[in-house]
């Protein structure tokens, strides 16, 4: 019996690890092949690789948060707008003064947490459909922001720009931060009670409720995590752009792209299954795609077509596989 237990438990993670691994291989292969084919082999040196990883940071952080929302059976369409709010607020509060960095970060995280609580409460208390609730909250945020700011507002001090431009040896702080955040997120999902309850609520909300789990709190928790991640992305963008403008989130299409990479990474859109590493692999694929198209010197639009095709293919493949699993 012990052997049966081991073979089974060895098999269980494999199903979910498979997808990230495959994506990783595909992304690397794509990147290497394009670099070699276009004779831009310097892209394969440390600087090129670091550049590739740096492309992942902005989308990566939001997508980690989005993973929490989707695993819990919800979804968050307000992240792009919240990112803009965070970026503008940060640079507006800082006004180039280093001593305002801490208050600005604190304010951004506090506001993000509040947005998460509002999203979660609308969904779990008022039973508003998550798509509609977060879409509405996103529109409200964008409206307030656009009414107050029309252009770049304030600026961030040089010290804060270090977040995006500083590095520890060859590794930029931002890349280190992204992977540290991913480690933390994966630990929360895997090893904590909150993580287990996220999967339970996403898998079967009614069953979880009857098992005594306070499903409302879990949903709120998922959205707070998601919004905090969006806030972090906003801070990162403010640092990279040296200031915040009310369109930075929308221009990055962070709402739809974060959902796309989560799904590509093997997280079930209906909830209850998935994880952070898959999401990150999805982000890497998008980053590799971006970098490759740049190397090829192709315009941005065919890239969109390819991204769309990848999302559709990923969902189709997962649906097919999970049907096999059930049968």
């Amino acid at each position, binding site marked *: 019996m012990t052997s049966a237990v081991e073979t089974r438990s060895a098999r269980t993670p494999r199903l979910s690890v498979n997808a990230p691994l495959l994506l990783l291989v595909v992304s690397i292969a794509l990147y290497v092949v394009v670099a070699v084919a276009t004779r831009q082999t310097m892209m394969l040196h440390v600087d090129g690789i670091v550049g590739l990883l740096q492309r992942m940071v902005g989308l990566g952080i939001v997508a980690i948060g989005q993973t929490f929302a989707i695993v819990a059976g919800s979804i968050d369409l307000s992240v792009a707008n919240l990112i803009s709010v965070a970026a503008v607020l940060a640079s507006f509060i800082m006004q180039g003064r280093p001593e305002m960095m801490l208050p600005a970060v604190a304010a951004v995280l506090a506001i993000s947490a509040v947005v998460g609580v509002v999203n979660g409460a609308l969904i779990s208390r008022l039973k508003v459909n998550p798509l509609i609730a977060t879409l509405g909250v996103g529109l409200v945020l964008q409206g307030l922001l656009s009414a107050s700011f029309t252009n770049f507002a304030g600026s961030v001090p040089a010290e804060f720009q270090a977040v995006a431009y500083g590095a520890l040896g060859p590794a930029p702080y931002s890349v280190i931060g992204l992977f540290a955040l991913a480690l933390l997120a994966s630990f929360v999902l895997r090893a904590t009670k909150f993580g287990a309850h996220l999967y339970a609520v996403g898998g079967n909300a009614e*069953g979880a409720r009857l098992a005594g789990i306070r499903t409302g709190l879990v949903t709120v928790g998922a959205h707070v995590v998601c919004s905090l991640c969006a806030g972090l992305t906003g801070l990162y963008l403010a640092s990279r752009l040296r200031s915040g403008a009310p369109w930075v989130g929308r221009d990055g299409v962070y709402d739809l792209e974060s959902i796309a990479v989560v799904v590509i990474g093997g997280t079930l859109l209906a909830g*209850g299954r998935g994880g952070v590493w898959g999401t990150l692999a999805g982000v890497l694929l998008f980053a590799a795609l971006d970098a490759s198209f740049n190397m090829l010197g192709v315009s941005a639009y065919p890239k969109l077509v390819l991204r769309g095709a990848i999302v559709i293919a990923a969902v189709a493949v997962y649906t097919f596989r999970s049907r096999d699993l059930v049968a």
Partner: protein
Amino acid sequence: MAQSGPLALEMVQITKSFPGVRALDDVTFACAKGEVHALCGENGAGKSTLIKILGGANQPDAGRILLDGREVSFAHPVASRAAGVSVIHQELSLLPFRTVAENIFLGVEPTRYGLLDRPRMRTESERLLRRLGVSIPTGAQAGELSVAQQQVVEIAKALALDARIVVMDEPTAALERTEATQLIALVKRLSAEGVTIIYVSHRMPEIQAVADRVTVLKDGRTVMTATIAEAPTARLVRAMVGRDLADFYPLPAAKPPGEPALSIRGGANASLSGVDLVVRSAEIVGVAGLEGSGKSELGRAIAGDEPFERGTMEIGGKPTAPRRPREAIEAGIGRLAEDRKREGLLMQQSLRDNATLTQRAFAPWLGRPFSEPMTTRRTDERLRQLDVRALSFEQEARQLSGGNQQKVILSRWLARNPPVLVFAEPTRGVDVAAKAQIYKIMRELADEGRAILMISSDLLEIVGVSDRIIVMREGRIAGELQRGASEEEIMALAVAHDERTEAVAP
């Protein structure tokens, strides 16, 4: 019965009303420690309300609940669970993508330094499963388990909470016979350990096999509580339905069967091979077999859902080879699917909408709308003929009992007037009275000259209703029996030679 010490559970003079219905009227229900107490009654008799009150999902308007002689009140399911009451619902609530151990400890995860204590979850789960006498790998995903294994995991979940009272709602509804037998052994084992079991079921043989005592509810009142020795099946059914079992199964066919309406020769696909089958007009052919024998697949093949890939098929002498359900329907086949909720009904739509679904599928694009009085009148007529009981035909399908839902689906097919009808598990989850009614309707449809193929896992039903019985095994027809064959003869064919020692665990 002589009692030593207080009863494990007493529910005294419980009354509960919902708008327009008095669901429970002064019901008293008591269980001794360690007994298996069967709770029977037709749908709507009040069983589920009683269980919901015990489980804390509903609160009684009046009455008291005592556990081990102490009065308790459950404001919420969590309170009832904390007091040692576990309800295992008919629709299992396991998380398919989480492991067995994670499911067993759902909501009561042990922690160490604030983190999940996985080693302990695993060893404790293994201990619980051993206590139940089964070995299921605790690291397996719940979705990979068989229904029987999932059922066991649900029971382990209850034990993880130290439940002293376990309510099982139709636990064998989705199980095969051997699996059901094993579950019953498991229930006995639990009761021997002192766990009190409230066993809700429609299946009479099972109740006779498992229960120590039985309580029958009818129209929200207790009509009988007796030891099982004093309550043979006939008496139980009379108490539930208020009439005798004699007219439970319909009379045999009034006239000999006519011409072949459906004939299949050499039908084969991925799950079927060499199927030769003839169903004549005015006859009911029962198809029996274990799970995985191919009996469900046969129904799906005929209806073009998972079509035959080889062989020939004729309807009323005309060759046909339906590749999808629409083509089968055009050829004159109607199929009532096994899983009403998933494959049959539009749960949130009205009875009328459900009853006209097939008709609408074949209506011309630019036809007159279906709500026009003429069509509605015909639809209503059919629904009334089948004795569909609802507050109004505009009611949503999900609000109806299983029997009435089945009748709505049948009326959808009758609108097309097909010569061949395939009934898959026609009375699954249907109460006793409605069962008798459905059998009667099937017989009437056959007498009108239709050919009926009835695929069923319920051997009593196969024996009681069929004019002829086909037994399937491993995707083939294992044999044919005439009306009056016994359950034993059917089982012998269903399992022949292949020594299946199907345990609950692999």
